């Protein structure tokens, strides 16, 4: 898998510094409560915490027992119950709540209402960024998307802004900031506010440019099935916090293994961005090479053997282990996505992206639902249909919804309500003027308020213009042209040549043009909210771009950006929720 490497490309920044900072802060907080202590940890925090300060370090700072707490909303109440119970029993213990990455006033209110405010100390552990790999940073905020885009709660805006500030304070000021999306704009403003009195660091900055993009600018990409290796691993086994758990069917033993997936895994780093069709061939070639290397032993004398065992064997064994894991994973993928089903699924997705044979697609989706194949995949397809077609025809919406509820459970009418709110799954509107409720309320308040009411009622979602965008940006290559997946010519390879991720295309174009000039039509179709700011004068040789996906990003997009980076000689550091 040789690619031309840019000889003078700058290395990526050292993100281990961020881990050190986080760890030091945590230790400082732990030391505020000297003596033996038990630690109750929110389940979502277990993995990130483990990357920062493992059990050994915690024990060094007198942490005695560790407990994992599963249900988040109950966490605070469970805690207050505990404190109150102690009070009643007359038992004295010291309590500290460490909120991460920041403390919300709503939490303090709960403490107050439960009568324990003042009995506990509260702290913030500003653990904003977890480096997951050389070029991936994570905010570790799984609730970001739902809170911000579904509920309209802007609580994480300053968090994201603070993360940017942290990066800037450690790695130097960014010279240019681009962005698109309502949340991106707010994060930028918030960050700018935070930086207002910041000291100007004169050190050489490591990041030249920052690109902020809202997830809802491109909903299509996360709805498509992934076909690059890392994406498939994620779709099938779920990569969490940079690691994955492979079950017995993959490990060919009766145990499950948890494995870190990053550039340290030499086998993985070579196949992670590859289209799946290339992976098996690569793995079997590697297996052959490995066998050859092992076979070298025959015909070795004692001296050579000793050297072999000392120098090479360990590396070979390591490679062997990794190789068998990935081969096992690939086999599992083949089995799970039984060829025919998967091919048909991809074909339907590609048709939807192209806008081709839509009726057949709808029939396929209907059967997919009828067969109860997969709750999530059925929904993905419905949303993809809705976004690419600007909503479903009323009869289709009602019929498919009814069938979905029959197949997967009627309680999902709540799911449909949420998806409609997000603009992910909608009915095509006939174009109403005044709805019933508006007229009802209109009688109670004046016109100005009615106008505002309409805004309040309407979802946060915007109108999708996928087909027009797709044409304008040439996202869907012409069918009929041969696409060689072994030698990909553009980012479309991450979807088998059928579609270039919209988000990545935007990034490519904006960076090429150093702004949004010439893209007015596109930004209009994306409902505006784009911006480009020069923060400070350029310094030389800056080739590292930070892309911040607000609301999460897919491995396909990461692979696509890596491809783009290799093409342009830039490195893209991706930051996600």
């Amino acid at each position, binding site marked *: 898998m040789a690619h031309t490497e840019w000889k003078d490309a700058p290395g990526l920044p050292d993100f281990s510094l961020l881990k050190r900072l986080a760890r030091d802060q945590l230790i400082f907080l732990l030391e505020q409560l000297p003596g033996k202590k038990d630690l109750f940890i929110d389940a979502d925090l277990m993995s990130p915490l483990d990357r920062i300060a493992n059990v050994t370090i915690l024990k060094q700072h007198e942490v005695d027992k560790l407990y994992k707490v599963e249900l988040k909303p109950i966490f605070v109440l469970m805690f207050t119950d505990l404190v109150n119970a102690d009070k009643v029993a007359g038992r004295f213990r010291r309590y500290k709540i460490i909120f991460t990455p920041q403390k919300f*006033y709503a939490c303090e209110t*709960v403490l107050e209402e439960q009568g324990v405010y003042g009995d506990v100390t509260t702290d*913030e552990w500003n653990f904003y960024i977890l480096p997951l790999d050389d070029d991936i940073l994570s905010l570790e905020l799984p609730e970001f998307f739902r809170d911000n885009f579904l509920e*309209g709660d*802007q609580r994480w805006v*300053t968090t994201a802004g603070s993360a940017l500030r942290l990066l800037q*304070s450690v790695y130097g000021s960014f010279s240019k900031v681009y962005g698109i999306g309502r949340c991106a704009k707010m994060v930028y403003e*918030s960050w700018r506010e935070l930086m207002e009195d910041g000291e100007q660091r004169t050190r050489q900055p490591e990041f030249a440019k920052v690109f902020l993009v809202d997830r809802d600018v491109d909903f299509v990409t996360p709805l498509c099935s992934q076909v690059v290796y890392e994406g498939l691993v994620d779709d099938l086994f779920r990569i969490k916090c940079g690691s994955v758990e492979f079950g017995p069917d993959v490990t060919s033993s009766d145990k499950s293994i948890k494995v870190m997936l990053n550039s340290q895994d030499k086998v993985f780093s070579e196949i992670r961005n590859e289209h799946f069709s290339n992976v098996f061939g690569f793995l079997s070639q590697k297996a052959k090479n490995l066998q050859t290397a092992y076979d070298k032993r025959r015909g070795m004398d004692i001296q050579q053997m000793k050297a072999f065992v000392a120098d090479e064997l360990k590396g070979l064994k390591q490679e062997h282990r990794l190789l068998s894991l990935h081969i096992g994973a690939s086999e599992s993928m083949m089995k799970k996505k039984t060829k025919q089903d998967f091919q048909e699924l991809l074909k339907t997705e590609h048709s939807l992206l192209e806008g081709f044979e839509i009726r057949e697609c709808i029939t396929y989706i209907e059967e997919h639902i009828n067969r109860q194949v997969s709750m999530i995949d059925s929904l993905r397809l419905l949303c993809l249909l809705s976004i690419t077609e600007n909503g479903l025809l009323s009869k289709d919406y009602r019929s498919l919804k009814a069938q979905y509820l029959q197949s997967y459970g009627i309680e999902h009418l709540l799911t449909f309500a949420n998806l409609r709110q997000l603009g992910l799954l909608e009915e095509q509107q006939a174009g109403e003027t005044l709805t019933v409720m508006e007229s009802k309320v209109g009688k109670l308040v004046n016109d100005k308020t009615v106008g505002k009411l309409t*805004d*309040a009622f309407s979802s946060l979602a915007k109108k999708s213009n996928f087909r027009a965008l797709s044409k304008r940006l040439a996202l869907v290559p012409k069918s009929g042209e041969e696409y060689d997946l072994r030698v990909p010519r553009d980012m479309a390879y991450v979807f088998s040549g059928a579609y270039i991720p919209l988000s990545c295309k935007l990034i490519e174009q904006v960076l090429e043009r150093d702004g949004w000039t010439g893209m007015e039509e596109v930004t209009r179709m994306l409902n505006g909210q784009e911006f480009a700011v020069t923060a400070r004068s350029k310094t030389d040789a800056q080739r590292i771009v930070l892309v911040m996906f607000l609301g999460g990003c897919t491995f396909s997009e990461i692979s696509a950006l890596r491809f783009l980076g290799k093409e342009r000689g830039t490195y893209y550091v991706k930051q996600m929720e």
Partner: protein
Amino acid sequence: VSRAKPEDDEYWNSSKFKAFTFDDDDDEFSRLKESKRAVNSILVDDDDDEEEEDGVERVSWSGEPVGSVQSFPYSLLLSLLSVLHLDAHQFLFVCRHLLVGEGNRLHDLSPEETVRRMQKGRAFSLEKFRSLQDKLLLLDEAVAVYDGNLITAVLIYLKKSLSKEILFRELMARDVALRHYVHYLKEMGEQKLLVELMKALGRTEDMALMQYKEHLNIKDEGQRRDFLKSCLGLPFSQDDATHVQDHYTLLERQIIIEADAEIFKKFPRKASILNMPIITTLYYSCFYHYGESEGTYSSPENIRKTFRISEKQYILTALGARAKLKSWFDVDSLFNTKNWLGYTKKRSPIGFHRVVDILQKNSAPVNVLQEYVNLIDSPELKLSVALKYKCHDIVINTYRDLKDRQELVVYREKLERDSPEYRKIQELLNNVQIRWKN
């Protein structure tokens, strides 16, 4: 990392002092900016100041004094020190200067200033804002800085200090604040208030959905059924009203079916159908109660009619269940229809290739498979399916009909010598009357 002296730690850990922030831009401390610049560039050598007991009281936003609170900027400060290579002493010194004169101004701050302080994590007081106008200014200011945490904080205060009618009225004109309020109420589980708010806003469908959602918290099926019944009158959209009705009916019947199964102990109770989707329930019914009269709740026919299941869906499900039980006769009956002349003909709303797939998955014998492969309309599809499932006779007949000699020859090689199919091909190839195309 250079550390402060132990006594400094104690000083800083005491309850009295709020930690220093770099971002402070209060006018009164313009001296600070100079100090910061000095500190950043060179090491300032200052004599140790006398400890200033300035009697600053740390006040929370609810007006009560609080226990020790370590806040963000200080801890980050220490960490950054290691990066900035500066002596901790200098900063502590600067901090002391900063804190002088702080504190009692809290009550003189405007809404804008208060929000600024909240943004920087400093002490603030909302209690002084008692007029409605001030409260709204506070809210609007919080919205203007985009910070959801602050918006919610102000809303919590307004919730305590305004009647709900007034609060609702004001929120109607402020959709960002409104969304935050709704989310806050949801998180705090304030169902009653949420419902009232939705009603006041005229969002009756949302209100109905919110109430319906509560059923997910009820574990006991009997109670859940009763709860669903109570939801029936809610102002859902027309479609959703039907769905909720179905939900109630379904659970009611599932409870009865389960109870019957228990009483008669006829069927192995491997899995409960309680709270299963309609189609799963239908499958269960086709599996265990096939052929029962329409009168019983457990019969497939009853379920089909009650929940208006489409013919396509019904056949798919029944096929799955009967094939699993290897009841090929039942499978056969599913597709029989009488045409207008009274002849029985096979018909399927799902493609016969799909039927074949399902039969094959359930290890149907070849003769059964072949029967359905033969019913596939499209010749190309029929051939590919026949090839896939090794329905030799069909393959042979198709190639014969296409007069494709070459394919027959190729196919023959896949077969066992002396098998009937092998011999059949031999016969065809030897048949001089056939005009082969190749």
